[in-house]
């Protein structure tokens, strides 16, 4: 809103300058015909129209993001809850057994889908979780011939905690949307 005000008032100093330039005795004395002032007014109106329509386009984008988030978030929350719960049951699986598991790619898919929901935000948090997913996959690959359980991989617990925290935040956002 402040930005809109600034953009609308921006041409006023130029107008004042033009007015003083049109005073008699000045070197820019060509500015005293009615038609020329009309052209200045036209330019000004055109500028204001551009600013106002950009502002409206921005508002449409915001509404679109909100609507998308409203439709998308409940399903994503359900999937993330299910994956987090599944993750906790897998914590004693050894790295060699975890190699063929598809859950980590599943978590990655859900997190990337959540990242595309602009109305949700929290991109940095999601980026950290995606990095944890990659690190776990790498850890499993490096330890694929050992019997070391997944719970000794520190990123595993970071991911588990992060997924549960994100689920809480999605819940809060969904409730806020309902209240609006």
């Amino acid at each position, binding site marked *: 809103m402040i930005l809109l005000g600034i953009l609308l008032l921006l041409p006023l100093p130029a107008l004042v300058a033009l007015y003083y330039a049109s005073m008699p005795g000045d070197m820019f004395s060509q500015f005293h015909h009615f038609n020329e002032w009309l052209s200045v007014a036209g330019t000004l109106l055109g500028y204001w129209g551009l600013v106002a329509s950009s502002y409206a386009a921005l508002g449409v984008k915001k509404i679109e993001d909100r609507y998308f988030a409203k439709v998308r978030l409940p399903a994503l929350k359900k999937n993330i809850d299910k994956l987090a*719960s599944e993750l*906790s049951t897998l914590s004693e699986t050894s790295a060699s057994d975890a190699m063929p598991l598809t859950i980590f790619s599943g978590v990655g898919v859900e997190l990337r889908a959540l990242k595309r929901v602009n109305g949700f935000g929290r991109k940095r948090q999601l980026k950290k979780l995606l990095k944890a997913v990659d690190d776990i996959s790498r850890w499993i690959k490096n330890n694929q011939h050992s019997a070391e359980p997944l719970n000794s991989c520190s990123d595993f*617990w970071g991911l588990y905690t992060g997924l*549960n925290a994100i689920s809480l935040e999605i819940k809060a956002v969904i409730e806020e949307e309902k209240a609006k």
Partner: protein
Amino acid sequence: MSYSNNDWVQAVAKLVELTSKEQIKWAPTEDFFEGATEKIERALEATLNRKKYVVKRLQKQEWYDADPESYHWTGPYYALDIYQVTPFKGELVASAPAIPILRDLFNKADGMFAFQSGVLDDLLKPNSLEQS
């Protein structure tokens, strides 16, 4: 200041981690707090640094009519209570808010207790029953 739900998630996730690494051991308990409209199905306790954690699975009474007999049990719900252990008596300090991660903690604690007490060992060992 008070603990946010996010803090509770971090704390309960830590409990799940400690359980998974077998750094704390859970055992069934009869010593739990039961609300007037609750029925505790199963409760497990673990002690860590003079704090006792009780995780329980419960059902809640819910009335569908004004009549006092018109209720049914809903659930299962999961809850976590934390007690401060003093020489005389445990004092209930805090109860976790209803967050879905409590179900993971309960299932993990229950599963680890079953594994540690070896309930399936007789059945999984080959030929152990035929010898007797």
